[in-house]
């Protein structure tokens, strides 16, 4: 657009040329409308580049008391449906837990709770598990996350793997502590594919035309496009994004991609809609366990990504003290172990591995073998060799950069 209409001089030029009584009236009406329009602005809460003020922790936690109830928002397939850990927690502390699997994707979750948080209202949850995607930064930079009081997290301090405190999205775990980590790799139905797959390039194989699933989350999708071209997402530039987007567009225009999925990819794989799909490590294990399917999961040779889902307390939480008590409970070695045994995602408590072996020793037969398999699973306790294949997400320095990224990859999903 050559003429910028919002430019005041342009507007002045337009209005002066044909100024009459009727125009004046119309303009005054317009100005009134303009004022009315401007009054409808959307408030942001940005404090760019801000880290927590030194006294933020004391300020937030001063005067907070236990309410004996906590509302917990989490992702699906992230706990044994019988919720043994929460039952134990309630029995030991008297705090009841309302556990809801309401988070399916980061974008919609942020968009859903943003207006309430910006207005300073409760979102109905005191605890939410969010991924280290760019929405994590949006939550943090908007001031929506309560700074955690580490003195209330003794188990975390004692048992958490030290590496987590160094993660770039929240150094020092000021606003978050990990719930579980996982890998984004590839899952496939070996019976239908008919061979063993090991590569990212298999997602571009014309033999699987119309049977390939990709993620609709632009970060997950973009990461795989980048890695397929041998580019490390964390170090990628805007030119790399364009190349990756072209690579992904070709995959789509060749008819290879069946669809772009959120958490529903598990269902699509189960129904045979897709044979090979981008996948999160623990889901496939759980699906096989609960439905007796035999899907395979692997981290591709070219690389996969590692992400962390994190406990966070929304700034408007009504029961933050109950929430942080629950967070710390999940850092008890035995609790962390039973959770990992079920969800099969990377446990943030290294001692859980030994605990699972101990649990296995008490069992016999198939149960014992299965339990030992979890303790030795590279998906729950990745080895150094495994870690070396894993990349971090693209990180954005500015909101503009993030919007650019979004605009580069979104047209692929929204076709």
């Amino acid at each position: 657009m050559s003429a910028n209409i919002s430019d005041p001089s342009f507007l002045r030029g337009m209005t002066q040329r044909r100024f009459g009584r009727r125009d004046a009236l119309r303009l005054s009406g317009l100005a009134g409308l303009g004022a009315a329009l401007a009054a409808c602005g959307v408030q942001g809460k940005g404090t760019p580049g801000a880290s927590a003020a030194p006294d933020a922790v004391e300020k937030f936690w001063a005067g907070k008391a236990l309410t004996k109830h906590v509302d917990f928002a989490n992702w699906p397939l992230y706990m044994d449906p019988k919720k043994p850990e929460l039952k134990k927690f309630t029995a030991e502390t008297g705090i009841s837990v309302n556990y809801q699997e309401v988070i399916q994707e980061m974008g919609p979750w942020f968009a859903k709770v943003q207006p309430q948080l910006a207005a300073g209202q409760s979102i109905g949850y005191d605890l939410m598990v969010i991924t280290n995607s760019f929405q994590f930064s949006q939550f943090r930079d908007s001031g929506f996350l309560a700074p955690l009081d580490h003195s209330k997290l003794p188990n975390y301090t004692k048992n958490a793997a030290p590496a987590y405190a160094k993660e770039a999205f929240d150094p020092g775990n000021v606003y978050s502590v990990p719930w579980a980590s996982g890998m984004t790799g590839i899952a496939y139905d070996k019976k239908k594919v008919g061979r063993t797959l090991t590569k990212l390039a298999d997602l571009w194989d014309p033999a699987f035309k119309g049977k390939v699933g990709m993620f609709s989350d632009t970060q997950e999708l973009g990461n795989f496009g980048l890695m397929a071209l041998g580019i490390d997402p964390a170090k990628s530039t805007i030119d790399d994004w364009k190349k990756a987007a072209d690579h992904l567009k070709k995959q789509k225009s060749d008819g290879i991609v069946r669809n772009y999925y959120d958490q529903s990819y598990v269902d699509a794989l189960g129904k045979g809609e897709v044979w090979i799909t981008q996948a999160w490590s623990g889901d496939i294990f759980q699906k096989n366990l609960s439905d007796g399917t035999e899907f395979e999961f692997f981290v591709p040779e070219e690389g996969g990504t590692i992400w962390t889902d994190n406990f966070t307390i929304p700034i408007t939480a009504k029961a933050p003290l109950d929430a942080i008590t629950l967070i710390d409970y999940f850092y008890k070695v035995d609790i962390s172990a039973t959770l990992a045994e079920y969800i099969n995602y990377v446990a943030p408590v290294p001692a859980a591995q030994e605990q699972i072996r101990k649990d296995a020793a008490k069992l016999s037969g198939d149960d014992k073998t299965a339990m030992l398999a979890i303790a030795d699973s590279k998906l729950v306790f990745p080895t150094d060799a495994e870690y070396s294949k894993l990349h971090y997400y693209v990180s954005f320095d500015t909101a503009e950069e993030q919007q650019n990224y979004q605009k580069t990859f979104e047209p692929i999903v929204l076709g």
Partner: protein
Amino acid sequence: MDRVKRRLAPYLLILPGGLWLLLFFAVPMIAMLSLSLQQGDVVNGYRFTFHWQNYTEAIEAYNSQLIRSLIYGAIATVILIVLAFPVAYYIAFYGGKRKPTYLFLLLLPFFVSFVLRTISWRQILTDEGPVLGPLKDLGLLSDSYHILGTAPAVIGGLVYNFLPFMVLPIYVALERIDPRVVEAARDLYANPATSFRKVIFPLALPGVFAGVLMSFVPVSADYVNSEVLGSSSTTMIGQVIQAQYLVNSDYPTASALSFILMAVLLIGIFAYARALGTEDVMKVAAR
């Protein structure tokens, strides 16, 4: 006193509806218009700056989805007319005592949420579901054949969900036709085809018009059918708007797209009304 009352009556009657419209239509529209001209990002807030580029950028980025929606809307509407007319004709002229039963059957699906009904189609049409599974096992279809995720699946879903909206107005128009008019046509030696073409169809047109209004607009703006039955190659504009609002928190683009869609649909409807002869249609429809 009576005179004053009589003069005030129409305004008092219009007051509840008027207030309702002001509160729940006019106010949100102004808020959305404002949003569509704002600039910024969700963390730092959006500010009103007469940012008309939102409109040009939205058209540039999403014209293919917009055009696709209109094409799907048009195809679905034509199929709806073709399917609905015979049904309405039969019920109106041959329904007899069973008319209420037929109408009830037509409305029966509305007792279940349309999202649920659409999802159940997903279960039925899935790649290895009750329809395609056996055909594939028999080798009549290739393993990779699928219905879900294609344009016909989405258009089929749209037609399925909006059929009653087309049948009912056409039925009402046909029902009103005085049988003596049709008899007169026969008396004047019009054969059945001619009396249909020259008498019945023109009298049913207001019903078709109302049916088109009630289906083309929501069908073109629909996002559920494409979301549930479609894939990324069937994305409709409603899904784009939904994604901008509820995934990206990009309120300005979403609002701009909503206004663009509204404008395009209004132009389409007026052009259609003009082609049919607006005044006649409106007069008959208002009868």
